[in-house]
């Protein structure tokens, strides 16, 4: 059953209204900001901070997806495009009360398979979608200093980790990366989520 974009928006709204406990997002923005500052002081390396934020996000994402699936009635997504729609319109809405715009990659040529195979066709492009956040609750009070800009800090990198962690729990391996960030002086804040492969249910090590 194909669910239209408008229906997803409505589902997202309902889920958000149904969340019983809501808090002031400024609290979150300040806590996250203080955390990033502390990580920068501890690691003294912006690339490492990006990595740690992503890792933290991965752990959060693995829990968030459980919460999401428990509360919503969303069935399996038909394709990666639908995954992007659900994430943008329902996922972000129900947790952060924002709805990023989602744009999809151009459709692949009809002959190429979507998931990568061991004998991989290197020319087949992996589908991706791009989330454009016109408001980022994490960055509400933030201004990056010169050295953070030069060091390549992606302030909201925890979001990339959350996406990766959540999708991995539903058997989709992706790479999520920031493409641009208004905190760095770019025009938009965009996250690109690229499909790596669909995962098979794996037998735990040692069972065979």
């Amino acid at each position, binding site marked *: 059953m194909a669910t239209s974009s408008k229906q997803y928006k409505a589902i997202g709204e309902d889920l958000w209204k149904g969340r019983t406990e809501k*808090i002031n*997002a400024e609290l979150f923005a300040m806590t996250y900001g203080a955390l990033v500052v502390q*990580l920068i002081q501890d690691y003294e390396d912006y690339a490492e901070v990006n990595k740690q934020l992503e890792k933290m996000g991965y752990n959060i994402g693995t829990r968030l997806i459980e919460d999401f699936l428990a509360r919503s009635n969303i069935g399996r997504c038909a394709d990666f495009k639908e995954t992007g729609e659900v994430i943008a319109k329902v996922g972000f809405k129900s947790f952060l009360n924002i709805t990023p715009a989602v744009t999809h990659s151009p459709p692949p040529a009809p002959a190429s398979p979507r998931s990568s195979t061991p004998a991989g066709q290197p020319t087949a492009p992996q589908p991706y979608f791009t989330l454009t956040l016109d408001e980022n609750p994490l960055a509400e009070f933030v201004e990056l200093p010169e050295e953070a800009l030069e060091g390549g800090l992606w302030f909201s990198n925890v979001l990339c980790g959350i996406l990766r962690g959540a999708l991995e729990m539903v058997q989709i391996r992706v790479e999520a990366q920031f493409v641009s960030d208004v905190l760095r002086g770019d025009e938009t804040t965009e996250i690109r989520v690229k499909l790596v492969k669909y995962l098979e249910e794996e037998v735990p090590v040692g069972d065979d």
Partner: protein
Amino acid sequence: MSISAAPGPSVAPSLAALADPQPRLMDAAAMDYFLIEAVQALRQSSAVADARAKKVEDEMIEAGLIPPPPPPQVKVKKDAPRDSMGGAVPGAEDDEEGLRARLEAIGLHVGANITERLCHGRAAFTDTLDIVKFICKDLWSACWDKQVDNLRTNHRGVYVLQDNSFKPIARISSWESRSDATKRARLYAAMPAGIIRGALARMGLNGTIVPEINLPQCTFQVKLPKSP
């Protein structure tokens, strides 16, 4: 023509909303997951920072710049307040000290700034008790969705804030023992202690905060210096 404080009919509701926007909300469960993982992230970063500091110190010792450390002394922690929290369990909490300090520092930042935001448009505070009541009501509601259950004072600068079901620690349990759960809860009370201290600091009061935990109840003892 009288000037009224309330917006008259000339101020469109949309303009009034622009001047005083409703705070953006987000889901509390997501915030809880975030805090749990933030503690883990800080535990690791604290270890990394300590290792780096120790490495520098070792290099300096080897180069003969500083003398080798004295043999470890027995630490007496019962009476020595550390930061704004008293340590009641000696020894074993050392490796968590860096983590606790970081959590409290984050709390300081958050408490000070959220207080500023909350005090917007509010009348000036009349006295210290008024400030403490603000913390018990407005700050507690903003952070933990309820108000303090019981406030006591000796009218000489000591206030005791009691929350019978303190949200950050209400759900902590341990399969080992209740005392183990209490020990872990002490760590998670570090950030709230910092929030209270930060709030007081931003309002000009320099106090010490000592949390006492009796799951799920948490009591904060706030010691403020005598007002001049």
